[in-house]
């Protein structure tokens, strides 16, 4: 029998019970949707992390008080809550120790507690700017480039000048028609002179990276106080080859700066691009497994639904099977026909699930402002799994149909 005929037959008999077929299909759709949407979203995130956006500038390692997932709570939180801040003094000590061993050393502290809204000429920015007190190495350490004007320099830090380098968004908002260089803006109760503008960087994880303003770390402490603030230290070695040696040196220097004895553990965290990526990957892995388990359960339930409906269908169509056999259908033809219907339901559900899943996952990716993807691998896997479900759960009903005695089947009313 021709393949075209099988498809047409399956189509017409499923069409005869539209609601029933659609409901059976829906089970598969839900199962596939859950896995595909999660895989799309995670894939999009991972994609944007691996190609393009780095958490840190290239080759950079960073010391900080807390690890990435300290918010996870429980044990981790307890362990870190009594940890000492990294003070500016300690940071400076590290800076001194590492002089000549690293290309760039960036000290930075974030004013996350500040109500940071910049005002110029009555025009206001959003109240949630990222305010950073740092030095001239910030740009390299965080993979920013200067658009125009100048970067912070050592003198700015030494003299605690009230100067700012601002992100593209601030420039667009406050200075749509004029140059911001040399202009004085107010922010969080202090005034600053803008000396430079960063080139646009785009967004990462749903956060704009262009609503940032950076100032000398010394000025930051003058204006906003030093208590309860911890300093992050990013270090860039002279070359990739020297990365491991510099990291070792950096850890030693950090231990000295923190005043740790030989038998004490490090009381600071080491961030590298690799460690950040692997932290993300481990979280992503857990989410993936979760999505997998949910999908698996949903798909098994849907498969049982298909089997049930196919059994009902075989019973209802006993007479039809008898007629087909009387005009020359072989058992194999009947098996093929019912199996095709089961696979059809399951594939149609799967395709719908993939479409909805990709849309759902990409909407999430869109919201997080990362590049959209189409997870080809997962889509193909989804179709294969759906075929397997259709065949697996459709086989028994189809077999029952195939082995019906034509005489009995013809007599069935």
């Amino acid at each position, binding site marked *: 029998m021709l393949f075209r005929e099988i498809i047409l037959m399956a189509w*017409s008999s499923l069409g005869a019970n539209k609601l029933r077929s659609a409901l059976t299909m829906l089970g598969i759709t839900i199962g596939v949707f859950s896995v595909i949407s999660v895989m799309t979203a995670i894939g999009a995130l991972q994609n944007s992390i691996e190609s393009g956006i780095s958490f840190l500038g290239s080759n950079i390692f960073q010391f900080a008080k807390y690890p990435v997932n300290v918010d996870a709570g429980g044990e981790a939180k307890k362990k870190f809550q009594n940890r000492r801040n990294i003070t500016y003094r300690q940071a400076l000590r590290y800076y001194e120790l590492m002089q000549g061993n690293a290309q760039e050393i960036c000290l930075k502290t974030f004013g996350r507690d500040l109500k940071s809204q910049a005002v110029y000429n009555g025009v206001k920015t959003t109240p949630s700017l990222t305010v950073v007190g740092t030095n001239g190495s910030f740009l390299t350490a965080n993979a920013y480039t200067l658009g125009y004007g100048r970067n912070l320099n050592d003198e700015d830090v030494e003299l605690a000048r009230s100067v700012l380098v601002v992100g593209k968004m601030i420039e667009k908002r406050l200075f749509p028609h004029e140059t911001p260089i040399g202009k004085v803006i107010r922010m969080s109760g202090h005034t600053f002179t803008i000396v430079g503008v960063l080139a646009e960087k785009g967004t990462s994880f749903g956060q704009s990276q262009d609503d940032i303003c950076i100032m000398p770390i010394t000025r930051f402490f003058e204006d906003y106080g030093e208590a309860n603030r911890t300093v992050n230290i990013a270090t860039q070695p002279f070359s990739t080859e020297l990365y491991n040696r510099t990291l070792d040196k950096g850890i030693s220097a950090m231990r000295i700066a923190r005043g740790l004895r030989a038998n004490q553990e490090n009381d600071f965290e080491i961030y590298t691009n690799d460690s950040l990526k692997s932290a993300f990957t481990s979280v992503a892995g857990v989410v993936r497994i979760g999505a997998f388990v949910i999908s698996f359960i949903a798909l098994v339930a849907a498969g049982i639904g298909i089997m049930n409906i196919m059994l009902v269908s075989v019973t209802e169509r006993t007479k039809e099977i008898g*007629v087909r*056999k*009387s*005009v*020359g259908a*072989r058992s194999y033809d009947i098996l093929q026909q019912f199996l095709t219907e089961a696979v059809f339901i399951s594939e149609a559900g799967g395709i719908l699930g993939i479409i909805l899943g990709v849309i759902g996952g990409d909407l999430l990716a869109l919201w997080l402002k990362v590049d959209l993807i189409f997870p080809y691998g997962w889509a193909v896997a989804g179709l294969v799994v759906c075929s397997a479900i259709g065949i697996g759960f459709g086989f028994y009903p189809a077999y029952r149909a195939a082995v019906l005695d034509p005489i009995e089947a*013809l007599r069935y009313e």
Partner: protein
Amino acid sequence: MESFDEALNIRPHGRSVIEIQDITKRYVMGEEIVHALRGVSLRIHRNEYIAVMGPSGSGKSTLMNMLGCLDTPTSGHYQFNGKNVAEMDDNELAEIRNREIGFVFQTFNLLPRSTSLRNVELPLIYAGINPETREEMAARALQKVGLADRMNHKPNELSGGQRQRVAIARALVNNPSFILADEPTGNLDSKTGGEIMGLMETLYQQGHTIILVTHEADIARHARRTVHLRDGLIESDDYLPLMETEFVISSP
């Protein structure tokens, strides 16, 4: 006598389509063994019009299933166009049904959601014939039964007689060795039944072999030969008297 019959073209001659010898069929129903057929021998030639008659329980249906290759005998020989059917497996039987036999049922047994054309195409689909040829053949068969204008109607849009015509077209479409009609007029009023029997007569005149299974003597009278079954055995096997078949002689 033999040569006389042949000269008058009453007794069919030439190759026999069906040759069954001493066929028996036993069923086990619960703890009881039912002997549906107890040794039936029959020879049916090309272009015969034969009626199988008998009361219910006579083995008539069993014989029909056997002739229709829906079932195989418990013992005995069944030769179909020289092929031994008694030893065929299900798939080979399906192929015989597909190519050699056209079924016409009392309850029509059309696929309710398919058009007349699609219904008639059904045997050709299983024969693996390509769509264009198939449609052409199905259309021709429908024309033959006078339903050229009802090709795209579904069974529920047709009258009982028209449905049976579609079923006959389906039986004809593969140009089978014989048409096996099981109470073809059982669900029809007598006028429509008469029309269907007229159609059968025409098909017979055109050279088809027809096996009619019925319990109605009126219907059986259309056939040229009548086989009576009783208790699983052939009771009588009669050819129609010469006078009534006169027109057969003159037909080409």
